[in-house]
């Protein structure tokens, strides 16, 4: 095999291999899965069981500390910590009788720190009910400041409740859609080239890339359904993003039905090239615009940006971006193989 000619295929395989390994072996950051009590009244002494994930309660117990956190300036420190194992402990919080907030129900976050895991938090862990109206009164029982040492963070993916380990699907589901878009852009490009030159090779390339694009779209939909079943609760929630994606893929299905129904090659090429441009022009609003205009469960839709903040941190970027490049190279390879087989077939037919 001539390496100079095939380097990009090797590169694609190597990158996808890297994302499979890195995407699976890098651990998750420590996090809090649940607390045994979700609500309490002001003045209570509250004993709760905390269940963590990837935590080191036992190993880091010398400097283990827990706080309930109102906002950035109000804290209650936990007392009488009893560690059951690395991921389970019990702790008591004495909630002051007066809370420095005007609302009658106050959400407190649970903040845990130890030397091994660093700080990690469960937002809105406990809801405290109290009678407001004491604003301005000097309120006791609250700490104004805590000391946290944010040590060196080891390489780890973010911990998200509900998502947990499935956050890794970011490398095996999302890149399929990027790949689909890139390969379909290749398909439209070749369709335009066919319309301009009339050379049959561009029509065949366009069709081969569309086939691979559709394959990646179907795989994206299936992997998304499996992920949704275990995070949103159903394979198909009739979410706007899912529905619009299904419509977009059906439009591409029709492209192949159209091609199959036309016999004469010039007519077939022209009609399917024009339809290809139409299909791509509807794909973009269906996938990326309409889902943003309304509510959706899917990140990146419904005013819910996917690639900002903590949905994709720098550790994840080191796997996610290569995954897009690797899968795109593989898809391009697949499209070319399909195109080469098709060219051979035509040669035999017209011999």
């Amino acid at each position, binding site marked *: 095999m001539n390496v100079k000619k095939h380097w990009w295929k090797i590169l694609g395989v190597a990158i996808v291999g890297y994302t*499979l390994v890195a995407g*699976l072996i890098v651990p*998750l950051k420590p996090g809090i899965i649940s607390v045994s009590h979700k609500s309490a009244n002001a003045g209570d002494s509250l004993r709760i069981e905390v269940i963590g*994930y*990837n935590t080191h309660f036992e190993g880091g117990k010398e400097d283990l500390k827990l706080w309930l956190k109102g906002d950035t300036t109000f804290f209650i420190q936990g007392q009488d910590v009893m560690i059951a194992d690395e991921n389970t402990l019990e702790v008591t919080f004495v909630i002051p009788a007066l809370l420095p907030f005007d609302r009658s129900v106050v959400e407190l976050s649970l903040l845990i720190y130890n030397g091994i895991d660093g700080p990690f938090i469960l937002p809105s862990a406990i809801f405290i009910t109290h009678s407001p109206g004491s604003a301005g009164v000097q309120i006791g029982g609250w700490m104004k400041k805590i000391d946290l040492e944010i040590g060196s963070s080891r390489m780890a993916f973010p911990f998200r409740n509900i*998502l*947990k*380990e*499935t956050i*890794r*699907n970011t490398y*095996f*589901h999302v890149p*399929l859609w990027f790949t689909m878009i890139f390969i379909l852009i290749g398909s439209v490009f070749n369709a335009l080239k066919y319309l301009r030159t009339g050379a049959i090779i561009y029509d065949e390339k366009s069709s081969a890339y569309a086939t*691979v694009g559709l*394959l990646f779209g*179907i*795989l994206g939909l*299936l*992997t998304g359904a*499996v*992920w949704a*079943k*275990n*995070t949103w609760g159903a394979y198909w929630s009739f979410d706007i993003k899912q529905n619009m994606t299904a419509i977009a893929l059906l439009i591409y299905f029709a492209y192949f039905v159209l091609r199959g129904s036309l016999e004469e090659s010039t007519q077939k090429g022209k009609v399917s090239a024009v339809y290809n441009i139409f299909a791509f022009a509807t794909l973009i609003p269906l996938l990326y615009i309409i889902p943003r205009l309304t509510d959706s469960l899917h990140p990146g839709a419904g005013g819910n940006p996917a690639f900002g903040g903590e949905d994709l941190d720098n550790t994840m970027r080191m796997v996610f971006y290569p995954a897009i490049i690797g899968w795109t190279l593989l898809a391009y390879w*697949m499209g070319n*193989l*399909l195109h080469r*087989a098709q060219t*051979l*077939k035509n040669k*035999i037919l017209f*011999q």
Partner: protein
Amino acid sequence: MNLMFPLLAVSKNADFLNSIGKIYVVVIVIIVLFAGIVTFLFRLDRKITQLENQIKNNE
């Protein structure tokens, strides 16, 4: 049934899928992806086999 379709059995067992931080959901996603690529390969293989047979018949 469950022996023939281990994946079906798995998807019915929510406890299993929820164990170890739902890592098996990632495993299933990768299997689906792999199955898709393999399906593509088999179809391409069939297409090329047909071409080979046609060339043989022409000779």
